[in-house]
């Protein structure tokens, strides 16, 4: 009868009947777009090799995810179109030296997607940032190739074998100088200008802080990243390194240098802000970011590696459930202005 009254079979669902335009795919592809300046700068400095490294990491990540979804999860659909595997691949590529052997990169992608992401159930379920897990795995498995840095911009665009010439990273130089004092390496250290604009040794994504910040600001403008989170990460890093510098400027380099050098920018704008592996409330995210920054500073100053960004974020990822339990958003009707009622 009701069919006769309406004339057709209508859809029934609970309200709301409106949906925001923002989808997971839109978020992920926006991140891909935000990584484009870094990609271009990487190619500018490391030539065709950087492009191939990026494409390999992205391709391997996408293929691994697709295979797992289709043949391990036995689903008819695939999840690679949401772009999250592309993001993971790009971040992995920007966290390795441009001269990395491609097969090692593929192994890293398999670990990143297969172990760190899909083994936990796919997007949203991974406790650790997949790209960083992949990088950490590569760093312990292929320590030499992972720390052989080609000199940026020193070779032609089409040069394939970058590993012939190697350069130390700024942070590596600082670390090496150690107790001997910074004066020993002072003439080798790149200027702040090069750090900001590019042209320094390191991973592909570490080449230019400016490119990373541009992408980050795009995400802030889109509303996918709260601006305060990356700033707090950098502030945490600056605080620790700043205290050390204030105590002994002869041994430790100043905090601005720490913030601009290495993967700090990439970590602050693209990895601390990773939605899945950071806490849910804004206060939680802020404390999370600041703590990770402090940790990164401590690792850089006192740890065995010159770089501490990846490990600082991975360690904090493990603490996310604790953050979620303790940092809750402010509930309406429980505050002081609500008359203290429970």
């Amino acid at each position, binding site marked *: *009868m*009701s*069919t006769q009254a309406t004339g057709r*079979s*209508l*859809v*029934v*669902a*609970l309200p709301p009947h409106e949906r925001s335009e923002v989808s997971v795919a839109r978020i992920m592809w926006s991140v891909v777009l935000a990584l484009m300046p870094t990609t271009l700068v990487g190619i500018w400095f490391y030539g065709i090799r950087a492009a191939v490294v990026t494409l390999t990491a992205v391709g391997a990540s996408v293929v691994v995810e697709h295979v797992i979804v289709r043949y391990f999860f036995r689903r008819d659909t695939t999840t690679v179109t949401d772009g999250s595997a592309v993001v993971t691949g790009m971040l992995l590529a920007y966290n390795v030296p441009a001269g990395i052997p491609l097969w090692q990169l593929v192994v890293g992608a398999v670990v990143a997607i297969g172990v760190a992401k899909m083994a936990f159930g796919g997007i949203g379920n991974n406790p650790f940032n997949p790209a960083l897990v992949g990088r950490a795995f590569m760093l312990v498995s292929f320590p030499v190739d992972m720390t052989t840095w080609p000199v940026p911009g020193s070779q032609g665009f089409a040069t394939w074998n970058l590993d012939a010439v190697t350069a130390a990273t700024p942070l590596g130089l600082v670390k090496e100088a150690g107790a001997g004092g910074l004066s020993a390496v002072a003439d080798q250290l790149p200027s702040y200008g090069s750090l900001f604009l590019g042209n320094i040794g390191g991973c592909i994504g570490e080449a230019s802080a400016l490119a990373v910040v541009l992408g980050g600001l795009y995400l802030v403008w889109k509303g996918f990243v709260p601006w305060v989170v990356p700033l707090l990460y950098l502030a945490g890093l600056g605080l620790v390194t700043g205290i050390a510098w204030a105590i002994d400027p002869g041994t430790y380099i100043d905090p601005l240098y720490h913030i601009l050098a290495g993967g700090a920018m990439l970590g602050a704008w693209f990895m601390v802000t990773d939605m899945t592996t950071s806490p849910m409330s804004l206060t939680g995210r802020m404390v999370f970011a600041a703590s990770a920054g402090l940790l990164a500073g401590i690792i850089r100053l006192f740890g065995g590696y010159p770089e501490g960004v990846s490990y600082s974020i991975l360690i904090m990822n493990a603490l996310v459930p604790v953050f979620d339990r303790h940092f809750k958003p402010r509930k309406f009707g429980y505050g002081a202005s609500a008359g203290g009622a429970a």
Partner: protein
Amino acid sequence: MTQTILFSVLVLGAVAAIFATILYVIAKKFAVEEDPRVGEVTEMLPGINCGACGFPGCPGMAAALVDAADGGDISHLNCPPGGQETMTRIGEYFGLEVGSAKETVAVLRCGGSCEKAPAKASYDGPRSCAVAHGTFAGENGCAFGCLGHGDCEVVCPFDAITMNPDTGLPEVDQEKCTSCGACVDACPRNLFEIRPVGRRDRRVWINCRNTESPVAAKKNCSVACIGCGLCKKTCDGIVQAITIENNLAYIDHDKCIACGKCVPVCPTNAIAATFEPPKPKPKKTETEPAAT
């Protein structure tokens, strides 16, 4: 080299010994005193912790049985999934009489299949009867019938319920069903009832829960009970097992003798039986005018 190996072995051995001692001491010190009979009775129970007995899992039931046995009477306790066999064994263990529980089975009281109650709307939400029940009356428009999302199938601990994709209704496997009652609680429309399996598995029940007016009920479903009373008239002359309330008949399973005479008289085929019911008598023409 040998020294290194020896040293490692010694250190690890010592560590192991220290931990073993700690564990031993703690295990002894904090050991919970438990009646050994509870453990033994738990062993005899099916071990599926369904809660159908009314106690929290099989150990809970075992503790209750031991308590009751100390009081000298366990006849009020029953393990539906274990059945008579289990209870007899437990009775022998305690040397006490056990109650004789009737064998029962879960029965679905809705016949609104895709064919009998065709869908008029299309539900767009989580596959959950509980959510769908809060959303609307149902794709077929019946506010009492099966929603077809299989909450019962999910909740059944024995895989005794399967959704039939052709009818859209759940089916109970009598062999697997233990009458634990999980489906009764899970169904937001209270469509399941635990009924005796009946002699030679013969049972008859009203396959509908709709209490709407006959017109409204028939609008959505061709096999809805309209409370016409023909079955009751038939049964009144035999065992008076059928009552009618709010346009809906109900068969009292304690009185019903599963003769099946009510099945063919139902004008909407709303009565279900597990056996081939007797053919209607030619007297049918007589009963019909009386009903209208």
